[in-house]
């Protein structure tokens, strides 16, 4: 609780000790909450109280990180925590900078919304004893992945996160769930093996797994006796693993079944948080770690008219992400147009939207002048996706509580029966489409801006086509479920007020982000700059005097 105590609103800068305490705070809070809610056993009220308190403390810790470490005028911008006091290349490092703080904030917001909504749909609490502990362990995994400064630890946190998500996909225990969970588990076990291959190869090639140390070694391969070329291929393996987590085409096939099988409250978290872990890892590894490695590249991208040439592996990252992002936009958009239930439309839409997040990242990787703007666009779009998709998945939960179904054929006329559900749902759909003044508008606008600045008409056409598809499926979703004559299931629907209030709060957040966009943009820009400033990252994690002991002699 010293964390909370240190969060007294003081205008002055906080000391280095307080800064490192803040870095580890969200991880500890989530872990302690998970364990405490497990220990609460049959004390339902106690368990709910602990969960809520923990989620709130998590949010406060993240807000404190945002302010004291990133956004305050005299903030350091980056802070580290060396686990056990071991210095960087040897010990485990936790790092917070603008990028991870931005991601943590999204997760904290959607986490608390999902938790509040979950409490209302689990009336039979004795059967659901392990729901809340699992929920917090999922948060532990996600938080750890955002905070870690070490590649192998990233693997470990991925597994922590995945273990909880496996159980959630299988949670309802029906035929659909067991099947979806098996596909999900198998795919991710293969991905874990591939991740280990990439990590092992990088260790053998570059001689370190600490991201800062790795970044420094790859930036000056000659000084450390490293051949940077194999790193490109090994990084390709890691990129595939992260693309699986993010659900980019061609690694998207597990998403529709897993998102439909998981409880909608968890699907909101899967789309809002675990997907973003994949995006975060791609941005962090590409730009902060391998971006500065000198590798000569010259390659033309078919159909876009872009000539990729450069001296960095980022060119390859850009080319691969281009292909995956464009394919995701179309596969997701077209799949969503044909969905038969609200959550299947949303699951496919999630594939398309992650394409919209990956596209500016690809542009940032390929075109050096657009680097900051590209990452800003990706971060803002990711924020919009987390809020809007989170809202819509939570709305699926609320619709199911109210009507007992979420299949489009059995819905209709919900707008007349429960306007308190319809209004937030409408706002969420509009945010997905990108109507001003919602958060989605700025996300779309920035993606358009970045695409237009590449002067490639093909890219702009892709973005426009993707937007039209999102308009089509959002309209279809709205007319099928909320307009028209009420169906029999809808006529008897009773809306849960807490769930509706959570939805309304998220809808207000979407409007708020859109109206007060200035600080959000500043935050995203801080995130993008942190991702691109590899030197500051290296300096903060592993101060330069270590060079003399670590240099030379590597195979």
């Amino acid at each position, binding site marked *: 609780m010293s964390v909370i105590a240190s969060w007294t609103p003081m205008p002055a800068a906080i000391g280095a000790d307080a800064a490192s305490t803040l870095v580890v705070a969200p991880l500890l809070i989530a872990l302690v909450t998970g364990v405490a809610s497990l220990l609460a056993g049959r004390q339902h009220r106690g368990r709910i109280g602990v969960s809520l308190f923990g989620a709130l403390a998590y949010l406060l810790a993240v807000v404190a990180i945002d302010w004291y470490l990133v956004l305050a005028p005299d903030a350091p911008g980056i802070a580290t925590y060396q686990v056990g006091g071991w210095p960087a290349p040897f010990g485990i490092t936790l790092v917070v900078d603008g990028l991870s703080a931005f991601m943590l904030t999204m997760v904290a917001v959607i986490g608390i919304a999902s938790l509040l909504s979950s409490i209302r749909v689990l009336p039979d609490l004795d059967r659901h004893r392990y729901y809340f502990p699992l929920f917090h362990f999922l948060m532990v995994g996600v938080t750890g992945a955002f905070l870690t400064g070490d590649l192998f630890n990233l693997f470990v946190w991925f597994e922590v996160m995945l273990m909880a998500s496996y159980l959630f996909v299988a949670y309802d*225990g029906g035929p659909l769930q067991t099947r979806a969970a098996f596909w999900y*588990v198998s795919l991710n*076990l293969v991905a*874990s093996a591939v991740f280990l291959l990439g990590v092992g190869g990088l*260790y*053998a090639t570059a001689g370190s797994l600490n991201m800062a140390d790795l970044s420094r070694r790859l930036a000056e391969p000659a000084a450390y006796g490293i051949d940077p070329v194999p790193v490109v291929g090994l990084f390709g393996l890691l990129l595939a693993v992260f693309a699986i987590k993010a659900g980019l085409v061609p690694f998207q096939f597990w998403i529709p079944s897993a998102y439909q099988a998981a409880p909608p409250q968890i699907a909101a978290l899967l789309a809002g948080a675990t997907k973003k872990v994949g995006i975060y890892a791609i941005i962090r590894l590409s730009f902060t770690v391998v971006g500065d490695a000198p590798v000569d590249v010259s390659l033309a991208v078919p159909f876009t008219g872009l000539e990729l040439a450069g001296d960095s592996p980022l060119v390859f990252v850009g080319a691969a992400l281009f292909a995956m992002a464009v394919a995701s936009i179309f596969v997701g958009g077209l799949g969503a147009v044909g969905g038969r239930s609200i959550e299947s439309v949303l699951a496919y839409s999630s594939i398309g939207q992650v394409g919209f997040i990956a596209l500016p990242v690809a542009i940032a990787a390929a075109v050096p002048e657009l680097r900051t703007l590209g990452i800003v666009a990706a971060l803002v779009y990711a924020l919009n996706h987390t809020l809007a998709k989170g809202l819509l998945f939570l709305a699926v939960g609320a619709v199911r509580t109210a009507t007992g179904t979420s299949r489009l054929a059995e819905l209709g006329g919900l707008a007349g029966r429960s306007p308190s559900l319809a209004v937030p749902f409408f706002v969420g759909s509009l945010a997905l489409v990108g109507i001003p003044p919602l958060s989605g508008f700025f996300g779309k606008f920035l993606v358009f801006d970045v695409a237009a600045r590449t002067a490639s008409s093909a890219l702009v056409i892709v973005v426009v086509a993707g937007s039209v598809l999102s308009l089509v499926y959002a309209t279809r979703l709205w007319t099928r479920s909320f307009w028209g004559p009420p169906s029999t299931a809808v006529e008897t629907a009773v809306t849960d007020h807490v769930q509706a209030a959570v939805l309304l709060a998220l809808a207000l957040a979407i409007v708020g982000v859109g109206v007060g966009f200035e600080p959000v943009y500043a935050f995203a820009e801080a995130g993008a700059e942190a991702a691109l400033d590899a030197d500051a990252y290296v300096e903060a994690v592993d101060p330069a005097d270590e060079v003399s002991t670590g240099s030379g*002699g590597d195979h």
Partner: protein
Amino acid sequence: MTAIVVATVVGALCAIGTYLLLQQDLVRVVWGLSLLGQAANVYLLAMGNILPASPDAVPVLAGHGEPPSGVTDPLVQALVLTAIVIGFGMTAFALFLSYRVYQEHGTLALAELAEADEAGDRR
């Protein structure tokens, strides 16, 4: 010599794992996943740099970077230990899950499960 043996073992484990992964039976798929994980572990261990055994190099593995003679690279071993623990946990979970799939569907054949999937999509 050691390097060739280790490389062969990794290759064989990968090959058998992939073969099992492509089988019709869920339990075999789990075996395949487990073997693939083990292949990754052996590979990870080998990444600590393999040197021929000699009085001042520990058999199989010698240091990485500038090795003090007679000490293995402890990092890869720590990594592999962690990976093995995680891998066992995941395999146990996958086995349990295949048991649940059998309970729900009365079959472990992938073709029948895929049919159920398509039927689920049509509903």
